[in-house]
């Protein structure tokens, strides 16, 4: 569904992503893991078109996406959540979700300023849709709460909710459980599985929490210093010495205690 082909991203002399290739199959949960600074979020920012790769191609359903602008990406069916929760902090939960529906709403300024019945109706429909998503996330009781008053866990939920609003085909989740306690993590992992199993979304996930990654992923790519160092099912990855080395440092077989 999403294909990276020899993608390289450079910032000045620094190569953040180096000849990366992978493919996310439709209807799967695909994870990208790796130590801090491995270039995972850069990969997401390439898909969101905030960065343009120096070389290589990114295809979504056969369509080259590097030609699109950041605000057009949602229209081809890719939505994302952010690592450090980029919510609209002064808005309520409901309003945040409604903005997620932006590409689908009518935007005729004359109809809107006169508040014509067509506008009222589409507003009502979008509100219904927002309540459906809140129901799914079990945050309906927070609809009128300003998001800056919510705990981090709930903010993450709203962030994910906003991504679901536009009914994308692919959802990018950037560290959805960072800073969450085990109970919250459990809820989010259930949610991610729901996204795949019940709502037929394809999910691309960046995460440091290995318990989550191992539980939900169908396939995992491991990155280090911008390169792909391993790829496979969660089981394969866990036993791959290259991966262990990347995470724990070089294994010195001749280490001595002095």
């Amino acid at each position, binding site marked *: 569904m999403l294909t990276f082909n020899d993608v390289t991203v450079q910032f000045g002399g620094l190569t953040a992503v180096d000849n990366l290739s992978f493919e996310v199959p439709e209807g799967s949960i695909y994870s990208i893991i790796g130590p801090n600074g491995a270039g995972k979020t850069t990969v997401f920012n390439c898909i*969101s078109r*905030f960065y343009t790769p120096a070389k290589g191609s990114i295809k979504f359903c056969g369509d080259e996406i590097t030609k699109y*602008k*950041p*605000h*057009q*990406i*949602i*229209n081809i069916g890719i*939505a*994302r959540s*952010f690592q450090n929760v*980029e*919510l*609209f*902090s*002064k*808005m309520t939960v*409901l*309003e945040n979700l*409604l*903005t*997620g*529906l*932006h*590409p689908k*709403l*009518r*935007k005729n*300024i004359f109809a*809107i*300023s*006169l*508040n014509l019945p067509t*506008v009222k109706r589409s*507003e009502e429909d*979008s*509100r219904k849709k927002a*309540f459906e998503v809140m129901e799914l996330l*079990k*945050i*309906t*009781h927070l*609809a*009128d709460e300003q998001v800056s008053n919510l*705990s981090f*866990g*709930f903010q993450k*939920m709203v962030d994910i909710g*906003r*991504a679901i609003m*536009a009914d994308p085909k692919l959802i990018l989740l950037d560290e959805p459980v960072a800073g969450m306690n085990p*109970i*919250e993590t459990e*809820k989010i992992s259930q949610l991610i599985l729901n996204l795949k199993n019940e709502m037929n979304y394809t999910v691309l996930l960046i995460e440091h929490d290995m318990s989550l990654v191992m539980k939900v992923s169908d396939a995992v790519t491991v990155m280090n210093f911008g390169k792909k160092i391993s790829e496979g099912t969660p089981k394969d990855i866990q036993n791959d010495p290259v991966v262990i080395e990347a995470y724990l440092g070089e294994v010195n077989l001749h280490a001595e205690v002095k």
Partner: protein
Amino acid sequence: MILMLKQLGNKRIALGILIVCMLFYPFSVGYSSYFLTLFVITCIYVITSLSLNLLVGYGGQISVGQAGFLSVGSYSVAILSTKLGLPFLVVLPLAGIITALIGLLIGLPAVRLKGHFLAVATLGFGLSVPQIALKWDKLTGGFSGLSVTPSSLFASETQLFYFFVFLTVLIIWLINNIVKSSIGRAFIAIRDSEVAAQAIGINLSFYKTTMFVISSFFTGIAGGIYGYWVGFVSPNDFVITNSFLILAMIVVGGLASIPGSIIGALLFSIIPHFTDSYVGITNIVIGVAVVLIILFKPKGMVSMFNFKRNKSEKTKKNELLLKEEGNRGVNI
């Protein structure tokens, strides 16, 4: 007293009182031309501060040159009515459209400029409009200004007064609809997080210029109202101090709030009426008001009132859901 303020927070009651007051205003001041002018000037500032709030409060784009748009609007009215002899009902919308076009030109660099840089750019605009009006005497009459041909539509000053009051209420309603819509949410989204706004499909450059166009359109209409009411425009009508005054109105009244803009505009239009007899007091009073508000009510005067959110069906629905959720025990 506090109870009264809280009561005022009820939108319907506040609106009702306001409309009745406006209808009876000309009677209560004995059709005094001075008091009618005071009221119309207030209306002009209400419209202008609402448009500026759309830009600054909702959209997060600083403009320190809003009085420039007022000038453009008032000069458009003067030129179109006197030099071209166009009728009132054509001139007033045209004034808005011309100002909107200027707003588009100012909005284009705003796509790239942010924060302080945008402030300086708009400041430059606000400073240059009166200068252009002064120097381009063939079109604007230079320092002697231009007179506006009065409309034949209205038999008396009172009729014109009622029309302008009606227009002001209409514009408040239009702007209210815009900020409550998907466009308004897009503006707020841009203010709060440009990255996220883009990721959910908001075209930043389009919406930033749209913001400037909408804002300058309504400000242009306000300038037009000024031209028709006063009957004369000159380069000194709207200078940079007016721009700062309008900015102060929305800060004191409340950013990103429609009642806030109205309160701020009312306050700062009425203060000069009481203080103008003492030389120099007006600015001191306004300055002190700004400082006090920022110190004690940083969210603006509007936060003193209990303006409830639109709590109709939306919240009822939520409260019902809350009860259901309560039984299920929702927590994370």
